[in-house]
């Protein structure tokens, strides 16, 4: 027999309604709602009082209480008296407890649907505000860096060493894999077209210039953004949540010098070597396609690559890598320091750091490309 609660209504006198409750009032069981009682109490019913009869009630829990609460709220709005004497003692006391603190009228936030224009305006204001904050952060970082150059920055050498290891040495495997594959893909894609013209030897030029000037730096930058930018944001964000950054501030230690500066320096130092290494891996990938697929002789490939990739390309590539490293570090640290004070805020900070870093890298690439064009490099 499934749990089933029943309600029956009697009217012993003109202005009194007796609600007879029986059966098993178990939450999740078959329960009547308060509707039929409410209907009976609707104006003009002339009913001024509600009493209860629960002698046939076998079992009750929250299922009964929500019914009663519903009814009680309705009755108080209609100015109908509710007599709880007929209820089981436990239920009566719980109802009293729930009504002990009157409902706070304006505690529930009012959901306002903003018009599109208001929303757009808000977004524009926010955009300029965050652009301003970004400028301020970069400015602070520059000041801290100048203190570093004068030898007066407060940070721990051990921290710098650890970050260099984590950001540099430990990134080598993934940087190898990604750039090797990218070199492979570029060679593969170009080979098909070039073969039509019998010009497959120029695969070496294609891979060499593309990787060294542009792709190695971008790919490595994106990998570092995801890997290290996110890590920086999460580390600093968690410190923010734990008030560890406040503790540094009240001790008069600048969080910019102690936390952010080592990270920027570490990435600035590590990106050029990583990019150089990435260049090799990319060219290696191209070479695999050339030798195995296009039957180009290894030495021929080597000479062609060496002739095509000049020092200018290499210089631009390494410079780009350096700039991307700084961007990743700035984005990661900034989002970490701006982090809110909850766990989900740390996640948001990490996400935002990666997105900001990648956008920054692409914008920087565009700027560098235009500059090189103007300078005829």
């Amino acid at each position, binding site marked *: 027999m499934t749990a089933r609660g029943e309600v029956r209504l009697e009217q012993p006198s003109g202005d009194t309604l007796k609600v007879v409750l029986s059966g098993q009032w178990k939450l999740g069981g078959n329960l009547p709602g308060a509707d039929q009682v409410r209907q009976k109490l609707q104006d003009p019913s002339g009913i001024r009082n509600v009493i209860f009869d629960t002698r046939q009630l076998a079992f009750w829990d929250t299922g009964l209480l929500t019914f009663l609460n519903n009814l009680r709220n309705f009755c108080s709005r209609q100015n109908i008296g509710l007599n709880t004497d007929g209820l089981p003692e436990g239920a009566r006391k719980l109802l009293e407890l729930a009504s002990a603190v009157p409902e706070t009228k304006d505690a529930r936030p009012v959901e306002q649907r903003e018009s599109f224009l208001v929303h757009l305006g808000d977004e524009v204001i926010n955009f300029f505000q965050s652009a301003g904050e970004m400028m301020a952060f970069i400015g602070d970082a520059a000041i801290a860096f100048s203190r570093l150059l004068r030898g007066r920055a407060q940070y721990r050498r051990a921290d710098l060493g650890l970050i260099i290891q984590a950001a540099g040495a430990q990134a080598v495997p993934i940087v190898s894999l990604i750039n090797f594959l990218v070199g492979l893909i570029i060679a593969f894609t170009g080979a098909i077209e070039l073969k039509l013209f019998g010009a497959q030897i120029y695969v070496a030029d294609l891979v060499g210039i593309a990787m060294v000037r542009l792709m190695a730096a971008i790919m490595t930058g994106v990998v570092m953004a995801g890997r290290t930018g996110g890590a920086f944001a999460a580390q600093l964000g*968690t410190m923010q949540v*734990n*008030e*560890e950054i406040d*503790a540094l501030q*009240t*001790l*008069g230690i600048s969080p910019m010098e102690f936390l952010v500066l080592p990270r920027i320096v570490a990435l600035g130092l590590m990106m050029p070597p990583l990019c150089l290494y990435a260049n090799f891996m990319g060219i290696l990938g191209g070479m695999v396609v050339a030798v195995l697929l296009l039957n180009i002789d290894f030495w021929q490939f080597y000479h062609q690559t060496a002739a095509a990739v000049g020092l200018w390309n290499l210089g631009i590539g390494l410079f780009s890598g350096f700039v991307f490293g700084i961007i990743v570090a700035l984005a990661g640290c900034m989002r970490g320091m701006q982090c809110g004070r909850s766990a989900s805020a740390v996640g948001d900070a990490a996400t935002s750091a990666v997105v900001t870093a990648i956008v920054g890298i692409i914008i920087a690439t565009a700027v560098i490309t235009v500059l090189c064009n103007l300078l005829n490099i």
Partner: protein
Amino acid sequence: MAAKEVHILVRDLTMAYGDFVVMRDLTFDINRADIFIVMGGSGCGKSTLMKILIGLKPPAKGKVLYGEVDFWGADAQTRDLIMRGAGVMYQRGALWSSMTLAENISLPLETYTDLTADRIREVVEWKLALVGLAGFEEFYPADLSGGMQKRAAIARAMALDPEILFFDEPSSGLDPVSARRLDDLILELNDSLGTTMVVVTHELASIFTIATNAVFLDSSKRTMTAIGNPKQLLAQTHDPTLRQFLTRGEKS
């Protein structure tokens, strides 16, 4: 009898987050060697008040004076200098999680003193012994219980022998015995070193044990409604909110 020397003066202080005013018109004096309690219900702005006193958040209106220096009227460097004579114990310890206890306490020493590494080590061991954590120098904060983290945080706050110590809810999350030990530690430090102590808390047992003076922040009126020794306030006040707070909600 020497006149009580004032350490911190607060005048007409108003705290706000944007347009939302948390507390207004706060005026009180904290004397040297006082154990001054900032008490009030949850969410009344006690921690915000402490943030203003230690330089983490500017007030919307009003003044904070350290001795004769206008704290928020001065530049950031002056504030830093003043805060160097102060130690702060944060609610959850705020120990730097990537450093051992020894490194946590050494950092302020390395930054602001010329002591050699050996001397610093001696000071670190002394401070940890003072809070009952001798032997835990190489532990990381995550390896310690909540009570131990708080005591380590006090050791760090005391690293530079500050003249004033701020405590943000020191006994929150502690079992009764640890809370009592913490109270005893606060009393002991105040007695032997004469350090001024500002404690933000709503733990009645602690308030009555350690306080020499207190200010009550009423969250419904959004201002301070009482100032004085909590025991005297309990005996003399007619304010129902304060009475309810000090008697733990006893129906009078």
